[in-house]
Structure formats: structure tokens, C-alpha cells
């Protein structure tokens, strides 16, 4: 662990998750931490309730899984299952991320300045997930709460079996899933979206976004 100015630097190269993680847990309590060469680690920065972490370069799979309050910023790309099952905190990716970003989250915010893969925000239950680029197929499948913003295009079966929450799309989608329907933006949407765009410095035309909501909260079984 090197201390440059007030920022601690942690070199992950050639080290395993257990070793890096133990050091990271101690380091985040002291102040901001920069990690380099962490692309080979999967499940890095898991379950932290505090911390300001900069990952210089790319990150592996399951980055920030179970995040519970840390701020994690990646200058490169992130792997699959970004911020899986997050409950609180913020994860910002300057590049793109793989499949399954923001799955199972209960809270927190994810910002991806590039694009995201398939199955983004599946079973999201409360997080705010902002994707500046495109997303793949099956985004927001069985989402039960929270918001997803996709400034680019979405793939097939967007919001399949959506139950609750909203998806805002800047471009087009290949198809909408079951139980999903387009709705009008209202004043609360505009206010919320504008605030997010300002906070995360995202350029986008808020009023032109298309909103998708659920048809029913009980699409599976009758009676």
C-alpha cells in the first residue's frame, strides 16, 4: 500500500481476491483508495458499507456486489454482473460493462457512460441505473422497483414481465416484453431525470425520453 498525497494506492496485480479485499477493507476506513491492475479480480469491493474507491483501468466480474454504501468509480470497462445485489452506494463506469449490470439491486445508483450488455437491471428492486449508451436483450426483466434510464437503444423483450418501476429510453427498442407498456412522461419524471443528468453530468434530452411501465402487478396467476 503506497500513500500518494492523501490517496492510498493499492496494486492488485498478481494478488488474489482474499488478499486484496482484506487490505481494501482496512484502507477504505482511512480515506479514498485507488486500485490498479484489478481486471483479474471478480467480486472486488464486495459488501462495503463505506469507501471512496477509484479503479484505474478495467474491473472484473461482480464488481461491487452487495455494495452497501461505497462509491466506486472505474475509469475503464467493467465485467459482467456489475454492482449485483447492491443495497446502497454509487458505482460509476466511464467505459462499458458486460451482461447483467444492476441485477437484484435493492438500492443505490449505477452510472455506465458507455453501453451495457444483455439482462441489465434484471429483478432490480429499487436501484437507479443509468446507461448512457445501448443495452442488450432482456433488460429489466421481472423488475420489481427502481428506475432504469437507457439513452441509446434497447434490444428485444425490454422490460419483460415488468412489475413495478419505470424504464426510460432515449433511442428505440427492438421489442417490448410481456406486461410492459409505453406511458407518458409526467412532471415528476422530468424533475427526477433532470436532477440525475445534472448530478452525473450526462448529456441527454430529457423530454424526448420514452417511458415504459407495467400493465399489471399480477401477470402470472389469476384469482
Amino acid at each position, binding site marked *: 500500500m503506497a500513500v500518494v498525497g492523501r490517496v492510498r494506492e493499492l496494486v492488485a496485480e498478481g494478488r488474489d*481476491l*482474499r488478499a486484496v*479485499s482484506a487490505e481494501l477493507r482496512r484502507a477504505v476506513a482511512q480515506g479514498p483508495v485507488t486500485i490498479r491492475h484489478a481486471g483479474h479480480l*471478480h*467480486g472486488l469491493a*464486495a*459488501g*462495503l*458499507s463505506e469507501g471512496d474507491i477509484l479503479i484505474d483501468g478495467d474491473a472484473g*466480474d*461482480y464488481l461491487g*456486489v*452487495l455494495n*452497501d454504501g461505497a462509491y466506486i468509480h472505474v475509469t475503464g470497462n467493467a465485467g*459482467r*454482473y456489475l454492482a*449485483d*445485489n447492491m*443495497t446502497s452506494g454509487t458505482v460509476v463506469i466511464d467505459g462499458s460493462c458486460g451482461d*447483467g449490470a444492476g*441485477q*437484484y439491486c*435493492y438500492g443505490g445508483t449505477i452510472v455506465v457512460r458507455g453501453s451495457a450488455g444483455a*439482462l441489465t437491471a*434484471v*429483478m432490480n*428492486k*429499487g436501484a437507479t441505473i443509468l446507461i448512457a449508451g445501448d443495452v442488450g436483450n432482456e433488460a429489466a*426483466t*421481472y423488475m*420489481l*422497483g427502481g428506475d432504469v434510464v437507457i439513452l441509446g437503444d434497447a434490444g428485444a423483450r425490454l422490460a419483460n414481465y415488468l*412489475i*413495478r418501476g419505470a424504464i426510460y429510453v432515449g433511442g428505440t427498442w427492438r421489442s417490448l416484453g410481456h406486461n410492459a407498456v409505453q406511458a407518458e412522461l409526467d412532471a415528476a419524471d422530468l424533475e427526477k431525470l433532470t436532477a440525475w443528468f445534472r448530478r452525473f453530468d450526462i448529456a441527454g434530452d430529457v423530454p424526448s425520453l420514452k417511458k415504459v411501465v407495467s400493465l399489471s*402487478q*399480477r401477470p*402470472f*396467476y*389469476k384469482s
Partner: protein
Amino acid sequence: MPVMPPVNGTFCVTVLSDRCLNARMPGKCATCVRVCPHEVFRLDDAGIVSVQNYNACVGCRICAEFCPEDAIRINPAESEFLVRSPWTFPQVEEIHYKAQTGQYMLRGFGTMGLPSLFDQITVVPSQLASPPPLDKYREECDLELVIGEDTCEEPIRLKYPLIFPAMSFGALSREARMALAIGAAQTGILSNTGEGGLLRDETWLIKGYENEARTMKRWEPGGYLAVQWSTGRWGVSAEYLRAADAIEIKIGQGAKPGMGGHLLGAKVTAEIAAVRGVPVGTDALSPCRHYDVQNLEDLKRMVAFLRDVTEYHVPILFKLGPSRPYEDVCACVEVGADAISIDGLAGGTGASPAIVTQGVGIPTAALIAPAVRALKNLGVHRKVKLFILGGMRSGLDAYKAMAMGADGVGFGAAAEIAMGCRACMACHTGRCPYGITSQDPELRARLDAVEAGNRLANFIRATAEEIKMLTMLSGHDSIKGLSEEDLRAVDLDTAAITGLKLIGYDRRLPWWEEAYPSQAGGGTIGVDRRC
């Protein structure tokens, strides 16, 4: 010309005279006389209806369906399955239900009507040819089972080789979840939250404390709580994982393998909805697989980050549905399991499509031999612990599973029954008359968590005594000494399925011997090189 009905003499037909319209008003109604296709009923000249020939009844119940006063009872004199199979009354009703609603049947509780293979296995006691029996009343027997001894900083030391397997808050009431914790605390065993989140009360009850501050310890020795990391991830957070003594990764379950958990909207109250993060009244239908796992490499990484989040303190368990036990167990070992539970066809459920509960998966007893063979071939038998679940009823079932090579067993449905359940199969409706699987405050008030917890503890103690008795009468002072030599199959089918020696023949069937030759001096199943 009289037409001979297809079967006769097998149903008792009773008309309840206090309900029957015609009994009160001769000449009226007589609907049963008109609708019966086999002239079971007769209307005489005085206008009075009577049963003239119950031998002609085929058990179709058309009369009962049309009776305006619900006054007719049709009871099979012989088993309905004998005389009407395959067109039994429940089968006819099921088709009618589908025809009327366009929906298939959902049902709670578990598999019904399939005999247990365990009943075709008998225990071999010790006499002269094997080490002599031990005295249950005056000698000691070791029943302890440890999980994660070499892999975790805080291994689990079960006082008895028994667990309460995953049953979620949602499927069960708050009181039932608390009762399981109290029962486990009194007996030093493990209770599993299932996938419906964690009740804060459970975290101190499981350790035997009455209060959150943990100043009043009421139940010794204290038990262990496993939380489930399942496909719906309901109520899951880092805090949830860190509150537990073990984490179970659910792959599947016996009642609906290949499908996820089902919690129907009727049971999704405001409290359940808040814990799970779903709207009130929605069906919480968990995915059939983990969305964040595409292959075994992902699963390995999942085990790694779960260990990391809990700082390598607690064991990682796996739960499998009854599919391909050999290969599935190999996969669990490969990704780093500390213990594996396999749930058989007869495994219980809060709600499931009926045909899946009844007809999907391998029966429990048939899973054990391949699962044990996998562990042996990988050199981890007795290290990675194996639990058998699914329709387990008693110390006798448990002993048989353990002699076949399992390290312990789980009691799910049996635990519900110990709390007072009478297997009415209404779990999915939320109308459990005992408040065990209900979220209705009025029904829940019928279940006293402490009383039900005491009943669970009693059941576990009695069952543990049964295991101890069988272990000792077959000449062992520890459950670790049990082997297939302590069992025999009583019929050819069971010997063929389990690889146990057949009674009388007193050997394993030839193809078992060929495929997995016995090791010298013992009846244990040999080792192959499939893994």
C-alpha cells in the same frame, strides 16, 4: 334391457335424511333419481326417494354434484385407485377444473400418494457375526456433525445430524419462523431461512436468547442459522449474509426442481412485500436459475465473493433438486461447497404446480448412492457433508439415509407437522388453520412460537434418540461408523435402485457388483473413475 355398469359393489351411497329435500317433502326434488345413469336411486309411488341398489354405483358423483342440499355422500368401499384408476374422482375433478378455468392446478405442502422407497429398506442389527451391539440405555453414542471444519473460521457443530431445511418467511408465518429458531436453539441444530429474508428476532432466538440485547438466555445450547442465497434474492444484503452462521446457495428443490420458489399473491402482505421489495399482493415467483450465473466458473466466483463478504468465517452450503445426483454433486464440490443438501421428489413446498410436485424428480432414497459415490470418487466423502431431504419422517428414515452414506438429514414437512400441521395441502392459499403457513393475523394468532418451538425440540430430541438407538443396536458408537452393511433391501426393485444387499440373497445384485465392486471385507460401494 338393463345395462351393466363398468364396475359395481364398490361404493357406499348415503343420503343424509336431515338435509334431503325429498325426505322432508315427499314427491319433491328427486334430482338424484333423474341424474343417476345407473338407477342407484328409486322414487316410489308414495313419492319417497331411497337408495335401491348401491351396488350399481360407479362413484361418478353426478348425484352429489346436482343435489341442491348437498345431502349425498359417496364413499369408496374399496380403494378408489383400485376400482376407478386411472379415472379416479380427483383425476376427474382436475380435468374439470382445467376445462372451466383454463388454468393448471397449484398446490401446497408436497408430494402425495407415492410410497417411500425407505420403507423397502430394513435395518440390520448386530448379533454375533459383526461387532456386538451397544447398550442404548447405558453406553454413549456420538451424534455430532461438523460442517466446514477445514475451510471456515467458524465451523458449525451440530449436536445432532439434523437440520430444518429452507422454508421462507412468506411461505411460513413469522411465528413459524420463530418457532423453528427456538426449536433449533434447544437442540443445537441448524435452521435455514429459505429465500424470504431474515427476521431480526431469528438472530437472537437461534442463539437461545429471548431478547435482542442477548441478556436473557432461555434455551441451551443454542443453534445455527443458515441464510439462503437463492434465485429471487428476496431480502438479501451484505448485512443479511453477515448475520448468519452459514450461507446456502439454492440451485433447486425437490417439490419443483427446475423452477424457482413460488409465493402466491394471497400471502404477500404489507410486511412480506416490504421484506422482499415487491408490491403487496403480487406473485413473488423466483427465477428458475440464478440470473448472475451462466456457468460453473461464475458459480466458483460467487462462492468466492460470498466467502469474502463474510470474511471466510462461515460455511457455504448448496441445495440441489433431485436431478442427476452424481454429476450435480461433483459440480458442487468443484465450486467449493462445504456441505450439499439434496432434496428428493417428495420434498415439500409452500406452493407449486401440482404436476411438478407429483411427477418431477428422482425419489429421495434413490439419490443417495450416486451422491455418495461422487463424494467418494472425489475423495471428499465425510469432508464435504451430505444432507438428504425430501419426505423424511423419522429417526428410522434418517438412519437409513445416513447408513447409505449421507452425513445428516433435514426435516421440513415433518417440522411443520411437529408444529401442529395436519397436511391439509392448503399452504399456497394462506389459509393454514394452524397459522404455520398463513399471513392472516387471525390464523397466525393460533400459533404460539414458544409452544411450537418446544414441540419442534421434542420432535428433534425423540428423533435423535431413535437414530442413537439404531446406531447402537447395529454395533456403532458413532454415526460416523454407519455403512450400507447396516441395511438390506427387502425387494428386488429396491436392491436394484439402491445397490444395497437384497434380503435372503444377502448380496448386492450382480450388476452393482460388476459396476462398483465391493471393497474387501465390507459392503461399501466401490469407487469408479467417472469424476
